């Protein structure tokens, strides 16, 4: 079911809210992928923590995301979606998303040093993630047989929690938030370990 939801207005609010958050992660990926290779001159000539490069890509993505929050609040008010105290759950969900964005940016920036064509695959990856995530549809509308994508997609539980908090004004399921946090923590530790163990040779690989 595409763009499934309870009401037309809820569907529209869900679509915009989910899309805005999705692009926080997508922009971190696209900004992060070339952050190390584009910083070649800095890496070759200055001693500084190389991990600042993907971090700065995520900071840029966050600054691009912040205005969309204002746009969403306006849309939510227009469509008459309820504002509740439970919407504050959006804060921990957003923090988990930023953590995940940081994790994927660090990981992919390091991979790109060794395989420079990774950036070319990125549009396919983000497009696939877009369709596999509950953006064009609501998570609850997914058939049980397709529930497997919920397990393999780190964005699935995060976007579901985000939609419940900011669109429906309900508390997200704790299991979804923990699942999202688990993904972000796992990718962060693996990616950061990979990055920190390899950053010493970036200067001779670029």
């Amino acid at each position: 079911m595409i763009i499934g939801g309870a009401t037309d207005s809820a569907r529209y609010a869900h679509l915009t809210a989910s899309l805005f958050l999705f692009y926080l992660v997508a922009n971190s990926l696209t900004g992060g992928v070339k952050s190390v290779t584009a910083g070649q001159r800095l890496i070759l000539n200055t001693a500084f923590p190389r991990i600042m490069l993907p971090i700065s890509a995520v900071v840029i993505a966050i600054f691009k995301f912040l205005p969309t929050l204002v746009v969403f609040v306006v849309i939510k008010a227009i469509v008459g979606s309820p504002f509740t105290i439970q919407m504050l759950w959006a804060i921990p969900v957003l923090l988990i998303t930023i953590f995940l964005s940081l994790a994927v940016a660090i990981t992919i920036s390091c991979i790109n040093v060794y395989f420079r064509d990774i950036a070319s695959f990125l549009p396919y990856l983000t497009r696939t993630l877009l369709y596999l995530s509950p953006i064009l549809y609501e998570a609850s509308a997914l058939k049980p047989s397709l529930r497997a994508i919920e397990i393999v997609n780190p964005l699935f539980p995060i976007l579901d929690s985000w939609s419940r908090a900011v669109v429906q004004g309900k508390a997200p399921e704790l299991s979804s938030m923990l699942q999202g946090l688990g993904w972000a923590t796992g990718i962060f530790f693996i990616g950061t370990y990979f990055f920190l163990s390899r950053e010493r040779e970036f200067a001779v690989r670029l």
Partner: protein
Amino acid sequence: MSSLSVSNSHLTNELAVSIRGVGLTYTTSIDKKPTLKARVKSLGRGKKQTRVVRALDDINLDVEYGQVLGVIGTNGAGKSSLMRCIAGILPPSQGRIEVYGSVSTLLALGVGFNPSMSGRDNVFLGGLAAGMSREEIAGNFDEIAEFSELGDAIDAPMRTYSSGMYARLAFSVAAVVRPDILIIDEALSTGDAKFKEKSLNRVKELRSDDRALILVSHAMQTIRETCNDVAWLHKGKLVQRGEPNAVIDAYQEFLHLGKSAVIDEDF
């Protein structure tokens, strides 16, 4: 030109840099831009994707405060690698490097510059990349602008600059820092003859008893005029170290070169 001073006072002949048994071996890809596609294609073909480079081999070198050390050698001798090791950019594979003081590098000009921004904005960007604070850069902005001789062009986007103008501004930003240990790698060859002379004079000004300078150059006349000690590297090894004229003469003899204006070509 006034300068930023980040140095502590050091006694002449006090150790500034100690290099003990330093070696640098690294693995780099054969392709300039390695790709996943090429890696997948080469699977099962036994084609080598990487090569091992031994850039430095058992280098032992001390640099003292008050010393101006010139580093000479042919291309690929390991000069830049050694400078990057001292600056902490490349960690050595073997040995130990101890640095007693703040280090600033002039390995390349214009690091951190953004061509779409004005020269004025890039002074701040370049200064921040060199480790200065915003306040320090603002306090020295007039001197930087004056030294660069750009005039009103300082407010034009850097993409409109000629390569000489770009290099002049870049050197002016870099030259304002006064660290304990300054490493300069071929950064003097910028701009027109007048600016080159000005740059050289600026480096000569930086010579002092409480500072150590390490100067990498192919310009032998500059090394003779500026340095009081010279190290000659070849294929990653330290061949000779000592009084500038003696080491440079031996180096030129090794290259089977006579003395001529071209070989000594400088500013």
